């Protein structure tokens, strides 16, 4: 066998744990091997996402040939190893450690938010001690052990903390945030924010996810249901183009909270504040619940049939008008496909606010590629990455922390071009102004991550040149959940810039920045979940479902087509955009099937690129539009179309504004939302 083969083939190690034989990849720790064999070893400080520290001493087991008990979380397996988890020594040790913890832990389980998913509770039940061996179980009399609000969204109760420091480590190791720390030492040690002040961070919520007890909890859904009463429903976050997998905890079709699961999805448990807390966008006075049409100058609520027929009549009678169909990047593949079919049928020009479609088309024409050439995990394994344009890093928070982690773990060479300061700059070997020549000088093999929405023509040309040469992999970040899909279906920013002002009929689908009807517009048909300046000027307004409320597929920045589930009940009489525009297309003579599966199937027939396991956008034939430069919205604003509807995120923004002095970063880099 060649040397290289030996290295590449993952070796399997066989060992015995209690009465079971198990084979696991070399490098696995004993605790994980036991889990694979179906044996629970209790632990607090260990978490598969973190480096082992062997601090809590709860996972000690006997290993033949090794003196004393060994931490199973930090001991790698060896061929032929014999592990005993059920011997007296290990079981006594589990009891001892839990005994120490319970002696200082309030027993207020009935009112604790963690009841039912508390590791202290579970391990004590399974391993004992069933009576605290020394002092009586404490009530910690005289101690007010109510939670301290770290922010409007996250609370902390130091007395329920078992000092596993998983929160502190996930914050630093994975989220690169350093908002959590410890204070004092020994028995006095306490998990803390800086100066015990407000929690100033992105509020990714990983500390909540990783807390084994009820010490760190989130405010939304407090005292609503016990953990086991919620359903778990995994779906795709629609706040940006990363397409993180989120787990919605729901009750009676309402989202109570969002959690992450590191075992599924492209985000490995990482989330941002939008994904974590931006789920309450469906509520509020701004929500449109019924179709409305303009009668005698005022918008009045009408039944669906009436609104649709009015739209049908309007469109039939406007055959020769100049029509523009403007789609949002927050719409699903099904929505966009139905909208696209309608546009095609009535001869409307396909427009978008995002430049992604235009850039993709140019890429296809000039470089013969159809989008990102690498996936997220490939980017983090690269030798170097260049963030081109200041917004490139902040469009996709999860990608940014992945890059920071790769820098810390493997020394990934990061370079940033654009005006600092931004936090990722701390990890960059080079930070400089955005100049095409500097970009041309990048080492071969560097992954290029251009800020497609805001680059100058010149910079973009430089990027194209390098990609064309074949030596530079490319990742195009997406600001919106499906702005990549917009490109695939042919919606273009250049079309918007060129045709909007002369549009006689405008169809506007989904959340948009456009906030006034164009001057020459005679008829405006809008689908929207919320009242906007544009919807209030429309002739017809269809109430649209939000991403959480409808099934749909989204094409993310790395060209993964991911299917989302409806996790929340539909508010009012709202329809998904696919149903709205599909029905309208059918009224005008099309024959679209109106189920998510069938629509996706039909979309795949019309756009074969969607069928690739790794989907690529095919541009090709059409004449490329020019790329306008000015007047584009700032990147955060771009993402914020949905987020701006969230009350939780509003509270977070206000909190972050108030707590800037407690930021883990210098003032100019403090978190904003």
């Amino acid at each position, binding site marked *: 066998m060649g040397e290289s083969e030996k290295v590449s083939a993952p070796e399997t190690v066989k060992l015995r744990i209690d009465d079971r034989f198990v084979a696991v990849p070399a490098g696995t720790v004993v605790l994980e091997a036991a889990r694979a064999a179906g044996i629970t070893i209790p632990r607090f400080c260990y978490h598969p996402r973190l480096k082992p520290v062997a601090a809590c001493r709860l996972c000690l087991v006997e290993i033949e040939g090794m003196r004393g008990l060994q931490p199973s979380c930090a001991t790698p397996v060896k061929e032929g190893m014999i592990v005993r988890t059920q011997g007296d020594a290990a079981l006594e040790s589990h009891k001892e450690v839990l005994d120490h913890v319970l002696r200082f832990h309030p027993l207020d389980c009935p009112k604790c938010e963690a009841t039912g998913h508390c590791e202290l509770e579970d391990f004590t039940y399974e391993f004992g001690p069933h009576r605290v061996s020394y002092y009586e179980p404490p009530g910690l009399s005289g101690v007010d052990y109510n939670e301290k609000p770290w922010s409007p969204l996250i609370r902390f109760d130091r007395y329920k903390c078992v000092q596993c420091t998983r929160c502190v480590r996930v914050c630093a190791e994975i989220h690169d945030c350093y908002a959590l720390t*410890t204070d004092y030492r020994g028995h006095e040690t306490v998990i803390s924010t800086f100066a015990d002040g407000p929690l100033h961070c992105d509020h990714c919520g990983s500390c909540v996810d990783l807390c084994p007890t009820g010490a760190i909890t989130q405010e939304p859904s407090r005292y609503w249901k016990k953990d086991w009463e919620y359903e778990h429903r995994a779906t795709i976050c629609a706040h940006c183009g990363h397409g993180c997998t989120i787990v919605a905890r729901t009750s009676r079709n309402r989202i109570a909270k969002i959690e992450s699961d590191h075992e599924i999805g492209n985000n490995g448990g990482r989330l941002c504040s939008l994904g974590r807390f931006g789920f309450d966008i469906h509520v509020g006075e701004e929500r449109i619940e019924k179709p409305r049409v303009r009668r005698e100058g005022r918008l009045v609520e009408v039944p669906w049939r009436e609104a649709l027929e009015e739209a049908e009549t309007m469109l039939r009678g406007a055959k020769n008008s100049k029509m523009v169909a403007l789609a949002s990047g927050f719409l699903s593949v099904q929505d966009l496909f139905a909208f696209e079919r309608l546009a095609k049928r009535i001869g409307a020009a396909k427009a978008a606010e995002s430049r992604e479609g235009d850039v993709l088309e140019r890429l296809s024409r000039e470089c013969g590629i159809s989008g990102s050439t690498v996936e997220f995990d490939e980017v983090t394994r690269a030798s170097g990455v260049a963030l081109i344009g200041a917004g490139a890093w902040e469009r996709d928070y999860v990608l940014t922390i992945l890059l920071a982690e790769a820098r810390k773990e493997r020394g990934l060479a990061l370079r940033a071009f654009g005006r600092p300061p931004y936090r990722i700059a701390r990890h960059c070997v080079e930070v400089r102004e955005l100049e095409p020549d500097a970009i041309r000088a990048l080492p071969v093999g560097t992954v290029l991550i251009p800020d497609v929405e805001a680059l100058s023509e010149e910079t973009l040309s430089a990027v194209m040149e390098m990609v064309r040469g074949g030596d530079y992999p490319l990742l195009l970040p997406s600001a919106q959940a499906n702005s990549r899909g917009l490109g695939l279906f042919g919606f273009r920013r250049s079309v918007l810039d060129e045709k909007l002002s002369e549009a006689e009929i405008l169809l506007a689908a989904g959340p948009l920045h456009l906030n006034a009807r164009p001057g020459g517009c005679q008829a405006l048909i809008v689908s929207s979940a919320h009242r906007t300046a544009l919807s209030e000027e429309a002739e017809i307004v269809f109430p649209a479902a939000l991403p959480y409320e409808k099934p749909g597929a989204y094409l993310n920045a790395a060209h993964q087509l991911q299917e989302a589930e409806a996790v929340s009940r539909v508010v009012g009489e709202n329809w998904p955009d696919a149903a709205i525009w599909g029905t309208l297309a059918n009224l005008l003579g099309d024959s679209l099937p109106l189920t998510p599966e069938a629509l996706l199937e039909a979309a795949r027939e019309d756009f074969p690129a969607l069928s690739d396991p790794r989907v690529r956008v095919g541009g090709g034939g059409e004449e490329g539009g020019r790329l306008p430069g000015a007047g584009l919205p700032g990147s955060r604003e771009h993402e914020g179309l949905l987020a701006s509807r969230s009350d939780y995120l509003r509270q977070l923004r206000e909190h972050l504004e108030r707590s800037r002095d407690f930021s883990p970063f210098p003032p100019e880099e403090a978190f904003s939302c």
Partner: protein
Amino acid sequence: MSAGERMSREGKGMRTPAREEVREFLREIRPEIEELCSRYETRRAALIPLLHRLRRRFGFLPPVVQREAAFVLGIAPGDVSRVVGFYSLFREKPCGRQVIMVCGTLSCALRGANKVIETFKEVLGVDLREPTPDGEFSIERVECLGWCDKAPVVQVNDSDYYDNVKPEDVAGLVERWRKEPHE
């Protein structure tokens, strides 16, 4: 000691400095900080020496000092507060301009350290870690100072050790320290 440092004695230990004051001091000692940093592979390694420098200047290390120190070294404020909270010589709370540290560990205890501590409390009329009203002194019972053959041992700020301290010496020592205060 710079002139600025000498003038600042009045505020030391009791008053939380203004952010600008901290920044100015850090600017003043910037060459010293950079020399410290050059001794190590990481800037963070200069943290403890830097905190000693700040401790000597401000007496205690409130959050405003910690935060500015963090940014000078390019680390997170939480990583500074953690260090300040961990090590006994760094104090987050106001303390006397002269901190009287009496060793209370075994060898000193065997030779009467507890009575010495009690006498300091009586003479100064304050409890442990509670600064005297004029801000001049605070008393701490500390762990082994490493001079056990001369027990009981007392150290004031960064002074040499006072050894074989007996309860009857306490009043005289306090009197002397008032007249010739330790830096």
